[in-house]
């Protein structure tokens, strides 16, 4: 993959020559290279089953690659026990037995942060996703969209340098998804953390990201890159602009090409 010209700074994390085979002999990934620079919003776009989630898991260290290396920027090495990483799963993945507050506080509790500081951080994170009033509610008392907000607040509470999001809004209805897209952009704008966002929605990836990496399947690899150079903040009007439509067409075409090379699913 040619290095992007949009961000000349050193990558925060780089995957080089990553391959992953599962015990069932399925080659999920092969020869995958990608770089994520500080402050970027990168979308990984691809058909289902192309190994997008596996890429995220490898970045997070939850899965070991069979080949290749994950290189972190020297200054920001993530050691075990440290949490410079936030992860948002496809499902909200909340503890059903704990209140919203306790769910968001979990990462800090695991780090044994002192109570006073913990409460303060959790409150900031909850306000950020607009759930300050729901701290005592239990997950099952919330709607799907609100649960996902809790999940995002939990990922943000450690103020991670990089936020990994694995199709977080795929299970939500369109209205909720649009709203959460907008809110996520606002939050990102305010925090300027780095985000890697996995999605199979062309529209979502164009709206959110400043760089889309289109993946091909069987085995999973990066096929092309589409740079979305529309400046932030991107309001609701961006969704209906000719510029947006143009980007969507380009991303769709790139996806079609990737799917043609990658074989039929």
């Amino acid at each position, binding site marked *: 993959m040619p290095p992007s010209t949009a961000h000349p700074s050193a990558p925060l994390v780089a995957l080089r020559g990553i391959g992953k085979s599962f015990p069932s002999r399925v080659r999920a990934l092969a020869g995958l290279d990608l770089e994520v620079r500080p402050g970027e919003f990168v979308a990984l776009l691809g058909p289902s089953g192309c190994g997008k989630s596996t890429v995220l898991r490898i970045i997070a260290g939850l899965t070991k690659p069979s080949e290749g290396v994950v290189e972190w920027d020297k200054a920001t090495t993530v050691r075990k026990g440290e949490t410079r990483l936030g992860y948002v799963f496809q499902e909200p993945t909340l503890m059903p*037995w704990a209140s919203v507050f306790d769910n968001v506080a979990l990462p800090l509790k695991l780090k044994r942060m002192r109570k006073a500081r913990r409460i303060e951080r959790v409150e900031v994170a909850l306000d950020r996703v607009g759930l300050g009033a729901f701290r005592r509610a239990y997950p099952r008392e919330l709607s799907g969209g609100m649960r996902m907000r809790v999940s995002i607040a939990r990922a943000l509470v450690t103020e991670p340098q990089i936020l990994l999001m694995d199709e977080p809004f795929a299970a939500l209805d369109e209205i909720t998804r649009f709203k959460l897209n907008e809110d996520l952009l606002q939050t990102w704008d305010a925090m300027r953390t780095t985000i890697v966002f996995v999605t199979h929605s062309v529209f979502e990836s164009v709206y959110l990201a400043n760089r889309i990496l289109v993946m091909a399947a069987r085995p999973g690899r990066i096929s092309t890159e589409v740079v979305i150079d529309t400046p932030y903040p991107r309001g609701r009007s961006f969704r209906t602009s000719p510029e947006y439509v143009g980007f969507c067409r380009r991303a769709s075409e790139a996806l079609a090409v990737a799917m043609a090379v990658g074989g039929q699913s």
Partner: protein
Amino acid sequence: MNVRERRDRPLRIVMPILVLGLGLAAWEAVVRYKHIPPYVLPDPELIWQTFVADRELLLRSLLVTVTTTLEGFLLAAFGGVFLAILFNQSRFLEYSLYPYAVVLQVTPIVAVAPLLLVYLPQHAAVLVCAWIVAFFPVLANTTLGLRSVDHNLADLFSLYGASRWQILRRLKLPSARPYIFGGLRIAGGLSLIGAVVAEIAAGSAGAGSGLAYRIVESGYRLNIPRMFAALLLLSLTGIGIFYLLSLVNYLALRRWHESALARES
């Protein structure tokens, strides 16, 4: 609870009482009409009179049996949960000991009780019987519960570098809670059975004063009404234990677990 269940609620209380009334009336009628002597089959009225007349003796025996049951139950509850945690932490221990837990469970307790009485003082033997019968469902259920952890939540904990102890305390044990309570509900009834079995075995050896012993003793004396009265008490004790544990289960899980939630229709 759906509409139909709600509408039927009075019926669910009235119908069993009606059946009880009809059954008792039929019983009474048959005994009177056929002139069955009380040492063959006493009528309900006589059983009640016997119960009132012998109440001091019977209630004292009840206290003995309930105490044993409770002690056996507590031992089973703590022992079962403790063993399950141990097995969960060390596969080595699980492989070594689990088969013997199964052996204890599948060997009929009635056959084991006389042997226990040979080697242990009577009170200890009765307690061990109650424990043997009751601990296995707690162990099996807790083991299942500790393994039924949401995979994404487990990933999240490892992402934040949670220690073994933190994973056990904040993830595995709370996830297992509904399973543990399920096991306890079974164990409650079983510890009563264990206590009764041991008392009967001990009774024939000539000692003991629990309710089961009263039944055996009354049988020798052909005091059939008292046998029925003692049986009635045992039965009520079982029902009481079941509902008490159901209540505890409900109180502990009502905020979050599906099994304990009232659904709006």
